[in-house]
């Protein structure tokens, strides 16, 4: 896993990405993430309603993303539980 970050596409984002996860080279910041993923996902990521978690924490400001080797990034679209 060294040298890589894993990106998880949760819920409907998995359909847009065509996969549940992908690996990219570390480190990865917000700009890098937007460039790395499928354009359809990039578009969603730019909406306020999509959250990003890194290493198990939801980012208050996702544009501060700074993922290092071994980190798991989760892309979290609007939830619908209950």
């Amino acid at each position: 896993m060294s040298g890589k970050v894993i990106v998880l596409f949760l819920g409907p984002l998995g359909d847009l990405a065509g996969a549940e996860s992908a690996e990219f080279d570390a480190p990865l910041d917000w700009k890098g993430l937007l460039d790395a993923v499928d354009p359809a996902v990039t578009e969603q990521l730019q909406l306020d309603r999509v959250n990003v978690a890194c290493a198990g924490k939801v980012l208050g400001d996702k544009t501060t993303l700074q993922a290092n080797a071994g980190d798991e990034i989760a892309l979290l679209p609007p939830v619908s539980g209950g």
Partner: protein
Amino acid sequence: MRDVRLLDQPFNPGALIGPFTNANPGLGGVCTFVGEVRGGNGIEALELTHYEPLTLSGMNELADDAYARFDLMGLLMVHRAGLMHPGEPIVCVSAASKHRRDAINAVDFCMDHLKSAAWFWKREKRGDGWHWIEPREEDYSDRDRWSD
């Protein structure tokens, strides 16, 4: 008694409520909500996915918030994940309190937040395949009732 669980197998809410009620002696009232997979509209199955590192800790934070906001003796919060069929329980929230208003409001509060603020994504299988369920505008306005 506080009991927060995330389950990946079917559960029977009735089997949880009796012991939960008995575990809170001296209570005045217990309010319980059970949500089930709705039948009809050609729904064959429902799948709830979640993000493991956040889900249970998020449910525990929600329970903390409910305890801080209401006068509770006990709170039971159980949520299913995985594949379910019509008639199967998805969620069960039960609150025990000295007074009915705290019990009812705590259940209302937890359900509103589980619906639109917990890390679950829901999709339905109909005759033509799987469809993601988007949160409704109403789900957000229900939740926002509590932001005072």
